[in-house]
Each structure stands twice: as structure tokens, then as C-alpha cells.
């Protein structure tokens, strides 16, 4: 049993709900939004709340596209894709943000493990993508420089 499922269970209120959801579990358990994960103040804590102690490996199967220099830290376009089979989720982290976990995308067998989004970066930092697949976390990172502007345009 994976950690995220354990979190999922602990985040449910009553055993009645627990049972109701259990009975519909065959395909996927869609976790609830986890406030602890999204308010965790550092990367390690954010990963731990999300995934427990799953082993982390660097992987070329995780494709992370982010600009080397962000035009504006308020809107940094990101594309992340997992080429790994059985990808359950992809999480994006910005370690130097006040709360590093930016988003967690959960996939079913009917969706493609690829997402484009736009994120905030308070300052220069690495962007980290963790793909949850086959009992491991597969990691890719990219350094993004954030400059403070004001004139331009």
C-alpha cells in the first residue's frame, strides 16, 4: 500500500465514508485536497506529507520544461510529462517558495500524464517534478532564474 493511500485514508472523516469509498476502490482512489501538504514550509516536509518515505530516483523519463530565466516570476509557464507506465501522479515543487508544493496532478488510465500550467516563483529556485509510479518517486529538476523587473513592456 502506498503512502498516498494511507494519507488518503487518514484524511477521511468517518468510517462510514471510509467504507463507502473502499467499496468503489477497484480503479483509483482520488485523494482529498491535503492542507498539510500545501502548507508544508520546506521541500522535505512537503514530500513527506505527500508521499511518506517512497524512494526518490532521478529519471530521464520525467520531462520538465521551464524557462531558464523567467520573464515574470508571477507567471512561469511549465510543462511536465511522465513517460513512465502506471503514472499515478505528478507533483511540482518550488523549494524556495514559502510553501514548496505548487500542485499535484492525479491521473487515471484514461488521461495522459502530461500537464501544462503556470506557476509562481518568489525568487530564483529549482523547479522539481516528482512522478509517482510503480512505488517510487521519479525526479526531474530545472533551475529557473527569477529577476525583479518593473520597467519593460
Amino acid at each position, binding site marked *: 500500500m502506498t503512502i498516498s493511500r494511507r494519507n488518503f485514508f487518514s484524511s477521511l472523516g468517518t468510517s462510514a465514508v471510509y467504507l463507502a469509498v473502499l467499496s468503489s476502490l477497484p480503479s483509483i482512489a482520488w485523494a482529498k485536497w491535503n492542507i498539510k501538504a500545501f502548507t508544508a514550509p520546506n521541500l522535505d516536509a512537503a514530500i513527506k506529507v505527500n508521499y511518506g518515505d517512497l524512494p526518490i530516483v532521478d529519471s530521464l523519463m520525467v520531462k520538465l520544461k521551464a*524557462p531558464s530565466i523567467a*520573464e*515574470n516570476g508571477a*507567471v512561469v*509557464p511549465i510543462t511536465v510529462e511522465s513517460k513512465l507506465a502506471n503514472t499515478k501522479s505528478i507533483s511540482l515543487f518550488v523549494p524556495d517558495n514559502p510553501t514548496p508544493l505548487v500542485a499535484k496532478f492525479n491521473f487515471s488510465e484514461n488521461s495522459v500524464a502530461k500537464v501544462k500550467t503556470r506557476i509562481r516563483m518568489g525568487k530564483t529556485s529549482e523547479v522539481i517534478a516528482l512522478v509517482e509510479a510503480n512505488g517510487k518517486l521519479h525526479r526531474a529538476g530545472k533551475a529557473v532564474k527569477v*529577476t525583479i523587473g*518593473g*520597467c*519593460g*513592456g
Partner: protein
Amino acid sequence: MNLIKKNKIYWLTNIASLLLSVSVNSQNNDEQPSNYQDAVIQDIQEFRDFYTNKFPNIDINEFKDGVYAIDEKSREQWLEIEEFAPYEISVEDGEEAFGQNFANGKSYIDCFPNVEDGIRQNYPYFDTQTNQVITVELAINQCRVVNGEVPLAFGKGKLADISGYISFSSREKTLNIKVPNEQAYESYMAGKKFFYSKRGQLNFACADCHLQIAGSMLRADILGPALGHPTGMPVYRSKWGELGTLHARYAECNKNVRAKPLELQGESYRNLEYFQTIMSQGMQVNGPSSRK
């Protein structure tokens, strides 16, 4: 070299459109084309030549994309945002407002009857009745007031949304701004003077940043070209997090050089818009746009 040639040929059609207004005038008044119109045409040519010489590898019409015509790396991020830009929601809101009836049963459509032919490409225009420059934004509020509605704020918000819809529905139409008489030329010259006048504690003119050193870095920003700038208005700046009008941008620019911004839609900014838009004569309406 080839590019420049192509631009020149394209340019001929633009001159033609300005000349058209001249010849119509001269027919009406039975006069020769006046010097001021030749002067304006020459100004436009010199303005364009400046950018062509400064950026020989950029097709001049690409300046409708602002700084993203110059810097490939920012362009990539910009295209990612333009793929589904936040201003699209504002355009939708603007379209809704545009179609809605005022309390008296009329709507903006009564003031802007030819939406399907595009609106923005003919603005700002010089109104020979009241002898002043009329911008899209001023016309929107005039429309409201005439129909008994309260005017909207000129910078950001509802009015910018409506302006955004007007630009969006005028996209790819070619800017066709006329200088119909001597008074219009005076407004044009007032705008031109503003463009080249240094102001603020930092002593910068519009031209210092957006003409002379356009494309260079100022702190962390690449300075955008003044040519083509009005084509992308209104603008959704990531920094603002919302759509804002050209005059909101002027005010911001003035603040950046520590000059107290002038009144939005006041005479000074409207004249500046008139001059700046005439400099972009013949380019395509491209607004709204997103910028950093």
C-alpha cells in the same frame, strides 16, 4: 536587405491610405495637399526606418508583438501564455457588456455600429467638430454619458474589458489614422513633443527608452519598441494581473521615471496616443496582448 525592400513595398500601400485622406480633402477644398500631411508621412517613414536600421533582421510588421519580436527567449514564454491568455476572460466579459442594454434601451452598438468591420483600427481619430483626439476609451465613456450612464474608470477594470473586446474584434485590421486638418496636425505635434520630452526625476523621454535604446536591458527588463506598441492595447500585464489601457501604461511609464502621471484620457495622453498610433500606421491591430 530583402526584408527592407519588402517593407518598402508594403509601406507604399500605407502611404497611399494617408494620401487618400489628403486627396479627398484636396478635392473637397480644391486645394493642393498641404505641407503638414507630407510632414506626417515623412515622420512615419523616418520612424520606421529607425527601427529597420536598428533591427535589420526583424520584419517591421513583427513589432506588433512588442519586445517579443526582439527577444526569442521571452517570445517562447509569451507564446505559452498567448496559447490561452488570461485576457480572454476579460474579452468575454467585455463582449457581454458591449451587447448589454443601457437603462434607456440603447447599447454600445448604437455608438459603435460597425463592429463587424472592426473599430480599433480607426482610433484614435481627430474629431473635426470638437477639435480633439477621440480614443476608443474616451468614446466608450462618451457613449455611456450620452445614454445616461455613469462613466467608467479609464485605467483598468470594466472599461478596459470593453476596450479589449473592441480590439479583439478588430484584430488583423490595418491601422488607418488620418490627420484631417491643421488642428489635427497640432495635436499630432503636441503628441510628438511629449514623446521626445524628458520628464520626471530620472529625466527620461518615451523616446529615450522605447526608441533610442529599445531592445536593451534596463535592470531586468528588455525595453519594448514604441513602434507597434499601440497595436497590442489594451494589455494584460502579469505584473498587474489584469487588463489595462494604453493610458494606464503611460501612467506606469511616467511613474517609472518618477514623473507624476497625467490625467488618463486627458489631452496630453490622447495627443501622445495619436502620435504614437500614427507612427504605427499600416500595422495590424493585435490587441489585447499579454506582457510580463
